[in-house]
């Protein structure tokens, strides 16, 4: 009886407390490797003692102090007092058990900022964040990114070595650096989400996990920093996530926005995002993520495709292009103009953007052109544009969609 209760508590602690205990141990022990070893030992100690002594009231605090004491103990036994002396001195300071949940979450936030430090190459930031903050195993990350486990393992080892060698501090940056550092954090989170959302191959479960983890991280960062763009990113991801069930049909084929079943959309998520966007606009705290979220919300809140407010969407793209210019945003604006003013205007807008360069290798640029040409009845040119898009597309579902469009034109 007591054993099963202890086992259940241990499993629950492993699920819910592991990440936070690790985040605190990294701060207390001053390094990833020592903290991971301490975490492992803390759970080993809990497995021995909880069944005998009962489950502690605060498993987080118990695990942190067990991990810390075992580490001190081991360092003493390893008879390298001299080398370990500074570490032991730091450890001798009493551990103030954080009474407030915010203090525990602060350690997780420190960990996110450290894992997303600009001194690390972007692919290392992603792998390290998913493993250390997200609690995914090396093998799970490798499956999600179609990489081999040793490739991912090496990224993580190198990132940790760099953090140690360059003495990257374990802290949330001060006001002066916060905006720049936050941008790196948000980009990592959005890349994790996009990987889970956009790719159609691979094991579906892992993919959905990436989206859920990205949303969890964005929520944490948004709540703890209170920064508008963190909320903007959270809103953007919530709206995309809300529409996920309608994006593909039972066969795994792509369903365009105009044909999506809007009753499948998660209205609670869309409403939560809408509130965040509204308050950001009310406080004029509007950056690129909030603007993209606002555009996504225009689509999500429209009663149907025909009832979409294309004028508002074009205006939002105008603002986005001023704040954060990019060829892809310009292309999306051109597509919205086509929806507002008709295919002739859309084609002219797409061609104007393409003339600016930077989109030659982007399949959706050719696909957008092909679509307007098709609507104008310029079949020969539309076919050429679809073939160009097909030569560049990399996702299976998108390829099948373009092939269907092309073959429909060839039957004519």
């Amino acid at each position, binding site marked *: 009886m007591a054993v099963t209760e202890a086992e259940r508590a241990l499993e629950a602690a492993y699920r819910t407390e592991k990440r936070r205990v690790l985040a605190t141990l990294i701060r207390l022990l001053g390094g990833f490797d020592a903290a991971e070893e301490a975490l*492992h*030992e803390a759970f*080993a100690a809990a*497995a021995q003692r909880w069944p005998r002594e009962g489950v502690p009231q605060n498993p987080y605090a118990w695990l942190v102090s067990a991990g810390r004491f075992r580490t001190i103990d081991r360092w003493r036994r390893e008879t390298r007092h001299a080398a370990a002396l500074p570490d032991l001195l730091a450890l001798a300071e009493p551990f103030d058990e954080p009474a407030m949940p915010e203090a525990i979450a602060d350690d997780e936030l420190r960990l996110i900022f450290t894992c997303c430090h600009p001194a690390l190459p972007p692919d290392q930031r992603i792998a390290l964040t998913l493993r250390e903050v997200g609690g995914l195993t*090396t093998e*799970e990350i490798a499956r999600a990114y179609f990489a081999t486990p*040793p490739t991912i*393992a090496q990224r993580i080892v190198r990132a940790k070595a760099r953090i140690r060698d360059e003495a990257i501090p374990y802290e949330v940056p001060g006001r002066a650096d916060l905006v720049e550092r936050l941008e790196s954090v948000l980009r990592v989170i959005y890349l994790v989400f996009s990987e889970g959302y956009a790719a159609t191959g691979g094991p579906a479960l892992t993919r959905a996990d990436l989206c859920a983890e990205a949303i969890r991280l964005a929520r944490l960062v948004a709540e703890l920093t209170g920064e508008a763009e963190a909320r903007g990113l959270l809103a953007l991801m919530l709206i995309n996530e809300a529409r996920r069930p309608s994006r593909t049909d039972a066969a795994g084929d792509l369903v365009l926005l105009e044909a999506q079943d809007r009753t499948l959309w998660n209205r609670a998520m869309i409403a939560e995002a809408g509130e965040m966007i509204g308050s950001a606009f009310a406080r004029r705290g509007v950056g690129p993520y909030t603007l993209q979220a606002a555009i996504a919300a225009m689509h999500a809140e429209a009663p149907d495709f025909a009832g979409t407010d294309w004028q508002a969407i074009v205006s939002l793209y105008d603002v986005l292009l001023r704040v954060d210019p990019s060829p892809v945003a310009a292309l999306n604006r051109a597509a919205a103009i086509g929806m507002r003013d008709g295919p002739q205007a859309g084609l002219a807008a797409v061609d104007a953007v393409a003339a600016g360069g930077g989109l030659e290798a982007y399949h959706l640029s050719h696909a957008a052109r092909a679509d307007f040409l098709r609507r104008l009845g310029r079949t020969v040119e539309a076919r050429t544009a679809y073939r160009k898009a097909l030569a560049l597309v990399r996702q299976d579902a998108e390829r099948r969609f373009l092939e269907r469009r092309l073959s429909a034109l060839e039957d004519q």
Partner: protein
Amino acid sequence: MRYACLIYYDPRKLFGGSPEAQAALEQCEGYDETLKESGHFVAAEALELPEGSMTLTVRDGKMSAVDGPFMETRDMLGGIIVIEAADLNEAVRVAGGHPLAKIGAIEVRPVVDFSTPPPQF
């Protein structure tokens, strides 16, 4: 998951009497206990030098057994440790704590999970 840590070293270096080699050999003695305490230990064996080993093949029903392999390279497989770890990075961290990692090299190889399909060539 289980990982096999294959320990390679140059025996002339490990048993050559240098202070680092002496220290590593001494630390090796209690290392199984350290792994047992941390809960990673599954099995471990140190291996004799390859001079004492045989290599056998069966082809067309006939067995051929020869002595060796003889050392062509300086490093030889000298020990095997099987550990239990949450993922490859944890296995690498645990293997990195082995005293012989300082003298030789340790290959960390996932143990086959027979519920997954075999590789295709």
